[in-house]
């Protein structure tokens, strides 16, 4: 029987929900942060046969450590393949990658994502209010992956009617637009947020609320969304993470580097604490190859 975790953070809930988007048959492209953790959790729990693919060139790694980026050294520990970035993306354009998990800073109702720049008042691409990292591989994943899962926190002004810059295409302007643009991939299938799970209507391609997290209300979600959000007639409450899922996360991410609950973002960790924490984490895991 499933045992639900009693204590968990919202990031952990997001990683758990996100991991459930992956199955044994998936060849999954995972991005930095929660997507990375979701892939690792899926592989360690319900989808041991899932093949995780990293942009840097790693396929099917088995490691006692968790990658912090899409091309760290753990991405090829005991891997099936250690190859090039170009090869992985070409394989994706060919259609081999079944699912990609990506994040965004701004999103619209058709699942188009902005990770390039927030223009702000009177701003422009060349002179934005906030410069963001850029596409990385997100545009390519959104363009050519069989389906994409988007991970984003619900924040005011992020779920908007019109994003400043389409970095990664969702359904563009709606039904038929991806095909017309010449895109190969299937487009977004879900948006995992910190309050609920969204899906896309098969006809209208519009994002709708599919499920809410324990204790949330639809109103608490709608207040973050600029457009008139549709809600599934079959709306349900999602299960919390299991103890097993949370344990995997704590083992893989002892310092909260990925999920940020004990994030390094705040301060500088003493090197010895870092060294000991990693040593302990490695020793706590055994691999079967």
């Amino acid at each position, binding site marked *: 029987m499933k045992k639900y975790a009693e204590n968990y953070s919202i990031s952990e809930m997001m990683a758990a929900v996100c991991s459930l988007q992956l199955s044994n048959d998936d060849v999954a492209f995972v991005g930095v942060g929660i997507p990375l953790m979701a892939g690792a959790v899926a592989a360690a729990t319900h989808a041991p046969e899932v093949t995780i693919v990293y942009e840097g060139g790693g396929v099917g790694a088995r490691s006692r450590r968790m990658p912090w980026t899409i091309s760290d050294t753990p991405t090829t520990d005991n891997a099936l393949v250690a190859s090039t970035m170009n090869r992985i993306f070409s394989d994706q354009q060919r259609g081999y990658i079944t699912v990609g998990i990506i994040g965004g800073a701004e999103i619209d109702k058709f699942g188009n994502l902005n990770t390039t720049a927030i223009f702000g008042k009177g701003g422009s691409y060349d002179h934005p209010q*906030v410069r963001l990292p850029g*596409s990385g591989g997100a545009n390519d994943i959104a363009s050519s992956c069989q389906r994409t899962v988007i991970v984003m926190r619900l924040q005011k002004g992020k779920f908007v009617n019109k994003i400043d810059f389409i970095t990664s295409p969702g359904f563009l302007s709606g039904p038929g637009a991806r095909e017309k643009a010449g895109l190969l991939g299937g487009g977004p299938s879900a948006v995992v947020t910190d309050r609920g799970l969204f899906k896309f209507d098969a006809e209208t391609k519009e994002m709708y609320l599919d499920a809410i997290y324990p204790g949330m209300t639809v109103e608490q979600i709608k207040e973050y969304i600029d457009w008139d959000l549709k809600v599934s007639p079959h709306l349900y409450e999602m299960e919390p993470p299991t103890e097993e899922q949370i344990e995997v996360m704590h083992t893989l991410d002892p310092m909260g*580097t990925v999920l940020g609950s004990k994030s390094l973002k705040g301060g500088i960790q003493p090197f010895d604490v870092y060294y000991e924490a990693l040593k302990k984490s490695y020793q706590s895991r055994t691999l079967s190859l």
Partner: protein
Amino acid sequence: MKDKRMTLKEAVSKYTWDGCSLNIGSICAREPMAVAHEIIRQGRKNITLITDTTSDPAELMVAAGCFSRIEAAYIWIGVVGQGYNIRRAVEEGIPNYIEIEPYSNYTAGLRLMAGAMGLPFLPTKSLLGSDIITHNPRIKVIDDPYGSGPIALVPAANPDTTFIHVQRSDMAGNCQIWGMMGNDDFASRACKNVIITCEEVVPTSEIRKIPNMTVIPEYAVSAVVELPFGCHPLSVTGCYWMDNPFRQGFIQASRTRDGVMAWLDEWVYQVEDHGQYLDKVGRDRLAKLQELEQDNCMIPEIISRTREEM
């Protein structure tokens, strides 16, 4: 076998100049940090950076005012922080404004691939429908003459110089890379001058033991620099793991312009060379980073022999 070895100072002095175009090899792991320090020390300006994704070395060089233009998919420091320096440059023009021509990782790689193949462009089904095309006039969308509909063309990139850090090279530049390879196979062929920095220069006979592992051939290489721990605080597969606390120090400092200038002063300008930098980081600390990596991954030993030798 040609001996192309030189010091990092010589290589940076000879193969970079104000206004040059520059590629930086690999992604996160194997990004050449020591090279970034030396370019900053030599005071290079108005460089055009042409890359896919570059993290810490780009942030450092942005802070030091090396770049006037970047053609890339992603310039940032992921997970542990954010790109304070690139933000300050683009949003506020501090220390100088940087123009960014946007691509995605795949299409930035295709540009290097086109350059590496001697072609003027390559086609792709990425980018279509996105504003990357809107804001990049050099990407052309044509109607596929074979009938698949719209297809995007990206222009070849042939930067003046690239620095690629690898685990091992011989003195002529035959390089074997372990772990993920990023776009280094194409970057090394796209660029006019290819400078290899490596953890270890090995005899050519070591390379010949497993020629399928050679990613970069000598005929593409201009110079070889032996540079152990050349990527600290980033990682190198089989050699050493990331020094995140160190990176945190840089990111913390980067929150303010004064902070990052003090950091650069301490860790770059006041440091003579890479050897002195490693002493300052601490040899003991480096040994522990090596241990953290090698607890999980070491470059395998290759026992290569013929039947007669068995």
